[in-house]
């Protein structure tokens, strides 16, 4: 799921810190973002926009952090609106709904663990590429070639 790869150059101490922070942003936002899934995306987007002119290592990881929020946004938004419709509309709680929430929790937890691992690794200057998001980021950021 997570691959440690060689980046095109060895990132400096400051770069590693900023890259690590891009993932940290998504974690901090979880506190606020739990009820509103969009907050995580916005926080990583702000960090991404703020680092557009940064070095390629930082940019690469900001992009991966941003992209990784997209799938969670989809999963969590669907769960969020489903819950809202149960509370305020005619929907009722069903096994299907509980199963969805558990599935969403498993995926969120996986993403959470992967994020923590990546924070630690990137802080050390180690380049980490995620399953699906890694190759996708490589397509967007041509800097790592």
């Amino acid at each position, binding site marked *: 799921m997570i691959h440690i790869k060689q980046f095109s150059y060895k990132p400096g101490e400051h770069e590693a810190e900023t890259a690590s922070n891009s993932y940290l942003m998504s974690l901090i936002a979880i506190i606020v973002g739990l009820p509103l899934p969009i907050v995580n995306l916005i926080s990583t987007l702000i960090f991404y926009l703020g680092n557009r002119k940064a070095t390629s290592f930082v940019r690469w990881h900001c992009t991966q952090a941003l992209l990784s929020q997209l*799938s969670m946004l989809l*999963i969590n938004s669907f769960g969020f609106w489903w819950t809202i419709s149960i*509370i*305020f*509309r*005619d929907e*009722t*709680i*069903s*096994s*299907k709904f*509980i*199963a*969805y929430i*558990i*599935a969403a929790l*498993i*995926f969120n937890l996986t993403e959470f663990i992967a994020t923590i691992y990546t924070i630690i690794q990137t802080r050390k200057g180690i380049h980490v590429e995620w*399953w*699906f998001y890694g*190759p*996708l980021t*490589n*397509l967007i950021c041509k800097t790592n070639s």
Partner: protein
Amino acid sequence: MRKSFIQGLITILLFFATWYALTQINWMNIFKVQQVTDKTEQKIGELFWEVFKKSEKEIKNTHVVNSVDSVVTHICKSNKIDRSKLKIHVLDKGDINAFALPNGHLIIYSGLILNSDNQEELAGVICHEIAHIELNHVMKKLVKEIGLSVLISMTTGNSSAEVIKEAAKMLSSSAFDRSLEKEADIKAVDYLVNANVNPEPFADFLFKLSDTEHEATKYFTWISTHPDSRERAEYIIQYSKGKETEYKPVLSIETWDKLITILEY
């Protein structure tokens, strides 16, 4: 490009597979969702009924109770509805009103019976209220109007008597959503037809009450809380067309007349 596309597809499939696998487990049983919901509804039903029991006088006359019970039992039997779930109360009040409370409490005001020209009209209104109960509209409305947290706080005794009273009164004096009302009307017609009761008087009742010239307009709680009576009467007529079967009265004419006579005094 190809690699990320395949990996993306696998991720999506993995999510749906996880979801599908998890739906195979009966979570409702594991988390005892139904039991908790039933208990909450039971408790709220009791609390609300207490409010009306205290403020209004319940008619305990055997003939009144038995007559209304005969109509309800006949409807339930013909529609395979669990009769024991329903708790019917006839209250001595002039308002033309009937409403459902949580946990199957159905309250009928004597004013409604007195202003029904025949037993089919009364049966129609009873069917409409039973439909609200059977379709779980009562709890849905409560959750929507006053919120789940307030309801739960009521059952745990953390709510003031005033809040409970207000919520109970809200159920008796306001209508459901338009779509829910229509759903209950249509279901009521089905119940009536299955019970061999003519649904037309039910529509007539609505027509009659939508007519502002009617002498009893000032007591029209049931109608003022149920908007567009004329429109409702029309779609009831429309829906019941082609469903004609052999209609039979539930109560004998003598029983119905005696019921009216008792209530008038």
